[in-house]
């Protein structure tokens, strides 16, 4: 099967985002509110693919995230499965190459991911949940949304021509 050039361009953008997560983030953004480039990659993929593919991608990314902090194993897989599936559906109502829409979409997805992960890890009753959801999660979501906007600005041409998978 011949792989089309737009598909390769999308794959290249996703690879750049993964490299940014594991190379650029520890080197440049060591703090607590570092952008989550993997989430951006997942959302960029999911919004350009079928809901099922988004869910499977979300599950796999979540499982790998869980492997790093195995005391809540499955929580990230659960939350990212839902986020990936929902992102696949949202392409019906979202313009994926619009900067403002992308920023709001990524911000909301990051915050919802945290909410679902807290719920899955049975931490919603903790007194710290308010601080997490009202201060820490929005700050991380903001930096992640900014990273998504920068990525879109840099690779707009490539992403615009990316196919529906």
């Amino acid at each position: 099967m011949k792989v089309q050039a737009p598909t390769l361009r999308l794959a290249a953008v996703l690879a750049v985002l993964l490299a940014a997560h594991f190379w650029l983030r520890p080197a440049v953004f060591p703090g607590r509110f570092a952008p989550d480039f993997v989430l951006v990659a997942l959302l960029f993929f999911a919004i350009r693919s079928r809901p099922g593919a988004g869910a499977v991608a979300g599950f796999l990314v979540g499982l790998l995230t869980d492997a790093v902090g195995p005391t809540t194993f499955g929580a990230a897989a659960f939350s990212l499965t839902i986020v990936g599936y929902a992102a696949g559906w949202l392409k019906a109502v979202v313009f994926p190459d619009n900067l403002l829409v992308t920023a709001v979409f990524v911000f909301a997805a990051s915050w919802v991911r945290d909410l679902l992960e807290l719920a899955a890890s049975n931490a919603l009753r903790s007194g710290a949940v308010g601080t997490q959801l009202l201060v820490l999660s929005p700050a991380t979501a903001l930096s992640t949304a900014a990273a998504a906007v920068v990525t879109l600005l840099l690779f707009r041409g490539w992403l615009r021509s990316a196919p529906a998978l």
Partner: protein
Amino acid sequence: MPIGAERYGSRADTLAFVACLVLSLVALALPESLRMPIAAALRRTALLPAVAIESQASASREQRQNTILLRAERDSLALAASQVPELEAENTQLRALLKLRARLGTGFVTAEVLHQTGLTDGLTMLLGAGRRQGIAPLSPVIAPSGLVGMVVAVDPHTSVVMAWTHPDFRASAMVEGGKIFGVVAARRGETAGEVMELRGVPYRDSLPAGTPVVTSGLGGVFPRGIPVGTVLGMLSESAGWERTYLLRPAAHPAQVTHVLVLSARLAGDSLEPAFDTLPAAPDTGEVEP
């Protein structure tokens, strides 16, 4: 161009979503004896290149930050270096006289903390050192200022630490000198677990603010004498039974970048000499001539 949703939603998509969701819930329900090996297998295979790249990136950032500092320190050290051999010899003699071991000896492994973006960062931490470097499960993890947590999973090149901020973390602690004992846990409901509790202090004992608290050595995991925190004040009391105190932690897991993982050899020993937390000699009322 937005396209109608009916084109995308199919039975196969729904099935894939439900299957992933069910698998996630199964993963959540797995017992610890199963989920730890699965997580370890993922870290050793799929995550291995990513962790290696991340570790290298962290190291290069560290090197960049240290360069300026090192240049300034190098000049100061050059001056001080001329006095080092004499001071070192004197220091060794004094330590031998006092029968104190050299601070920690070689019984520890230094490790870099690879901070993650997930919610669990600060509760669990990934270290850039593992079994190959001599780390074993249940090894105590400390920072220069005090207790950080303990190792819960070990891979060849990485290991996972349960920090004291984790809801399941407990450590036996005492007031310096071994007079009053209690159990230390993270204070739930506080911002990111930035304070801890000292529970189970007998009702007859009271601790003034500022009292240092160290590990007691009970339980066999943490050696005696690792600084845990200082008393901020009393939190609650059960009449005639026990008191709970609020502690300011000695080390914040979310802020540490490097840690020391103690070897099992030291786990049954005391670290009071290393941290200078030896109890003061009892006051007998006698005056030396």
